[in-house]
């Protein structure tokens, strides 16, 4: 039995997971319209490489990764691209982003050479492949972290400066209501462990630990069975159920006892962590040549039929909500869990969360209130993306509005609950008063925004929102400072260039004067001599020019041509004679002219 460790703090919110685990994963029917955002991953958005009107096949690349941290985007099914433009997406800002609208043709026609979802790619053995080529395939298949951070997986698999000892597969799924990883592990354990082996191969990691919270006994059993069936030496570890035990740093702590130092990455202590769904999609991408086109999404909360569905990326939330049969008193939808999830904007204007308050956490105190008197809201058109693990239909009954906030009484409960061992009450104080340098000194950037502090706060202060505000403000300032430094550099270089040009001009002028002086050192001694020299030089130049301009066509002439020349010369001489005789009698002429 493995020794497990504990991380500081943590909370035990009600799980509410059993509602959506009653039946297995169902495949959602093909929607009538897909909206596929080009930014479904952390980093640079993909660049569209299709045009409006193009017919695309299932799995066809439509967004090319741009830059280092980026990933590919594919058509989730075959059909026609009818629009490429800004459309509402799931983002706390509520701002639209670039998306492609795809109208499916219903034929689900795959791209050529991509294997249909059942057969393995022939002749492909990842063990004989270059890891760099495998990483490239993952990037071009759009494989990103499906636990929620959607960080491109190929970058996490690059060899760093330290050897990776431990690969951790994260199946903890600590947030209430969400069961997509649980169901995936129950039903597709074999593919997950094979994907994990591929990841282990690429990282050249020693041991593989699969951490699953002990509230998922069926998933643990399925994964153990799959590991045994494949003959791998992975260890499936049941970890205690505590929120946020599924956060990478906290899970690493529980499984290995190692703590990721502040400002460092897990790879710096020889550990790398992937979500189970990421391992699954890596397996599909490498073994079947299938890009990430769908994911498992839990629909739960205030619904008649809570279940997990495999949905195509780009499917509107409304379709999933219809499958779950949301109850009439549903007044809003959450993407993600109740602790860290995102309230979705609704398309009737009234209850749309403003940018100021569209923040995480329905179990948490809310900064912006929602209109609670609205019934029968039209469901939203926001597309489901790679980060969407869960949709919760929420109602006032399920998540009663938080009571109004009270001043902080410094009771320290937040510090006791903080899994990152921070002091949220101090961070709150500094963020509220915009003392950002002090907030940074108190390790604001180690905050994982889990919401445990807000959950326990007896004054119902929306702490996480203050931390999100402070973090994004600090990042913006760093960006501004960089821009200012860059502008200063360019300005100073411009000044330097002007100075240099001025100097070069002056030097050139001085050099020319110097050269003129050296060319005629005698000039100052005797001006008359110098003048004579100049005249002689000019005569010599003229002679040279005359010699150069001698006709070159007088050689090798025929006798006839020579006769002609002689004749012309004679005529010319005669004319000269005539002219001379005319000169001798100038008076006649001048008289004639003057009259």
């Amino acid at each position, binding site marked *: 039995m493995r020794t497990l460790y504990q991380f500081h703090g943590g909370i035990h919110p009600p799980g509410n997971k059993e509602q959506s685990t009653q039946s297995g994963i169902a495949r959602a029917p093909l929607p009538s319209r897909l909206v596929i955002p080009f930014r479904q991953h952390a980093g640079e958005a993909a660049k569209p490489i299709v045009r409006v009107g193009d017919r695309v096949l299932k799995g066809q690349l439509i967004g090319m990764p741009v830059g280092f941290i980026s990933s590919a985007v594919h058509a989730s099914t075959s059909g026609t691209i009818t629009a490429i433009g800004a459309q509402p997406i799931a983002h*706390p800002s509520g701002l639209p*982003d670039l998306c492609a609208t795809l109208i499916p043709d219903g034929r689900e026609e795959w791209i050529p050479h991509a294997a249909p979802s059942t057969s393995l790619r022939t002749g492909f053995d990842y063990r004989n492949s270059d890891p760099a080529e495998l990483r490239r395939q993952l990037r071009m298949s759009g494989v990103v972290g499906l636990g929620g951070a959607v960080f491109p997986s190929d970058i996490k698999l690059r060899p760093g400066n330290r050897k990776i000892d431990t690969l951790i597969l994260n199946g903890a799924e600590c947030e209430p209501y969400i069961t997509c990883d649980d169901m995936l592990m129950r039903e597709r354990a074999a593919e997950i462990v094979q994907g994990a082996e591929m990841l282990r191969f690429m990282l050249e990691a020693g041991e593989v630990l699969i951490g699953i919270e002990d509230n998922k006994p069926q998933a643990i059993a399925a994964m153990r069975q799959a590991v045994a069936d494949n003959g791998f030496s992975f260890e499936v570890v049941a970890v205690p159920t505590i929120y946020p035990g599924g956060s990478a740093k906290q899970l690493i702590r529980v499984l290995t006892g190692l703590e990721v130092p502040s400002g460092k990455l897990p790879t710096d202590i020889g550990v790398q962590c992937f979500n189970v769904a990421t391992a699954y999609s890596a397996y599909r991408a490498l073994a079947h040549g299938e890009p990430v086109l769908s994911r498992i999404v839990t629909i739960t909360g205030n619904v008649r039929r809570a279940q997990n569905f495999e949905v195509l990326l780009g499917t509107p939330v409304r379709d999933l909500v219809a499958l779950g049969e949301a109850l009439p008193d549903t007044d809003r939808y959450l993407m993600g869990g109740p602790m860290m999830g995102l309230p979705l904007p609704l398309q009737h204007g009234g209850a749309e969360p403003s940018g100021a308050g569209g*923040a995480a956490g329905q179990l948490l105190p809310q900064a912006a209130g929602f209109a609670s008197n609205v019934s029968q809201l039209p469901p939203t058109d926001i597309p489901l993306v790679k980060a969407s693990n869960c949709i919760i239909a929420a109602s006032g009954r399920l998540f009663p509005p938080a009571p109004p*906030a009270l001043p902080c009484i410094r009771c320290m409960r937040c510090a006791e609950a903080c899994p990152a061992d921070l002091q949220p009450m101090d961070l709150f104080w500094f963020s509220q008063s915009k003392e950002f340098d002090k907030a940074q000194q108190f390790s604001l950037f180690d905050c994982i925004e889990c919401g445990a502090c807000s959950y326990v706060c007896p004054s119902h202060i929306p702490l996480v929102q203050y931390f999100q505000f402070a973090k*994004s*403000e600090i990042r913006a300032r760093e960006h501004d400072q960089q821009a200012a430094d860059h502008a200063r550099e*360019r*300005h100073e270089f*411009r000044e330097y260039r002007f100075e240099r040009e001025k100097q070069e001009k002056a030097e050139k002028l001085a050099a020319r004067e110097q050269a003129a002086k050296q060319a005629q050192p005698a000039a100052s001694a005797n001006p008359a001599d110098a003048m004579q020299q100049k005249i002689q030089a000019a005569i010599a130049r003229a002679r040279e020019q005359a010699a150069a301009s001698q006709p070159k066509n007088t050689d090798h002439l025929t006798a006839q041509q020579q006769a002609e020349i002689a004749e012309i010369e004679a005529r010319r001489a005669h004319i000269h004679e005539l002219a001379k005789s005319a000169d001798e009698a100038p008076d006649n002429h001048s008289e004639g002219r003057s009259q």
Partner: protein
Amino acid sequence: MLSALLVMAGIAIVLGAVLGFSAIKFRVEGNPLVDKIDAILPQTQCGQCGYPGCRPYAEAIASGEADINRCPPGGEEGIHKLADLLGVEFKPFGGGTVLKPKSVAFIDENLCIGCTLCFQACPVDAIAGAAKQMHTIIASECTGCELCVAPCPVDCISMVPITEKIANWKWKYPVYTLAQAK
């Protein structure tokens, strides 16, 4: 008595030598305060302060010539930072100061006649072009100083405010209701 005088004089000479040596050895070129002030200024080089660029303004502040509230692009926050650095009171902007949203210049390329006047005015070389060729703004380098707008003889340069996009969006300051005291 004499030995005491000699000891004191000796100490004075040694310390004087040390001070003299370090004054030469650790001499600081320029005024370090100017660098600190310059680091706070937003480097738009717009000249709205009345000085030809951020560094001249920083020098003017350091020498006590200029007030700290002359830099509109730095905003009130810039004044706060300068006040903190210099240990003086915060001073609001004068009545005539208009705070504008952050913008970048935009050249209407249909109207541009290629006169090169704008890029002679640009303090950060953010305009590309050549004589009698169309000019264009390198938006990523533009500081929004507006110095190129006035010289343009055909008024083809406009300032476009930077809109909020997903890439540059920031979380807003949380606003929530406090419970009423009973």
